């Protein structure tokens, strides 16, 4: 069975600082991996996705993520955060063929001024 672990329930960083949100997955095949963001009182928005090829994928608003197969990880990064990045971030994996998206528990990001 597939699963996604986001070990940090909450992360606080200062505006302008760099960011890494951790995600590890468990899946027997080659996963499709995603990061979604949920802003306050809103639904989910896709930040970026990885299917194959270059393990570093670029997303919207300066976010990127790196797929490291040996580590079963897909951490999200941003070089310099902005106050508007405050939100909850969800890592997700798709089990191709099983038609199921599994979400991690989410990491709440707070940006300090």
């Amino acid at each position, binding site marked *: 069975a597939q699963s996604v672990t986001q070990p940090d329930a909450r992360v606080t960083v200062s505006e302008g600082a760099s960011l890494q949100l951790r995600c590890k997955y468990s899946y027997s095949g080659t996963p499709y991996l*995603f990061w*979604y963001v949920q802003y306050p009182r809103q*639904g989910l928005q896709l930040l970026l996705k990885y299917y194959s090829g270059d393990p570093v994928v670029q997303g919207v608003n300066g976010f990127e993520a790196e797929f490291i197969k040996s580590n079963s990880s897909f951490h999200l990064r941003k070089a310099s955060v902005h106050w508007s990045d405050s939100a909850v971030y*969800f890592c997700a994996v*798709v089990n191709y063929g099983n*038609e*199921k*998206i599994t979400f991690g528990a989410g990491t709440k990001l707070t940006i300090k001024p």
Partner: protein
Amino acid sequence: GALVYQYPRRTICKSGTSMRMECQAVGFQATSVAWYRQSPQKTFELIALSTVNSAIKYEQNFTQEKFPISHPNLSFSSMTVLNAYLEDRGLYLCGAGRDINTGQLYFGEGSKLTVL
């Protein structure tokens, strides 16, 4: 662009009553629609996956008797929470896409259910 609208945005209902929520896809064909529930302080639980012209697949803890879903065409889906109780409260999200296997779904803003 691709957009998904959900309504109502918020509903307050009495315990034991039902609530119907709708999901409208604009700008793309919503071949697959996934309904999720985000309970307070929790992640997203998949309720069911609906693909046009196929049977609706419910996850283990959810049933058609409790959460009947309609997906009559490529732009619309609805789900009803029947006989709602406190444990049914949460944000119900509709995610729609052309091919669920790509994993890329467009999500609505959700329908928040409060049960009194």
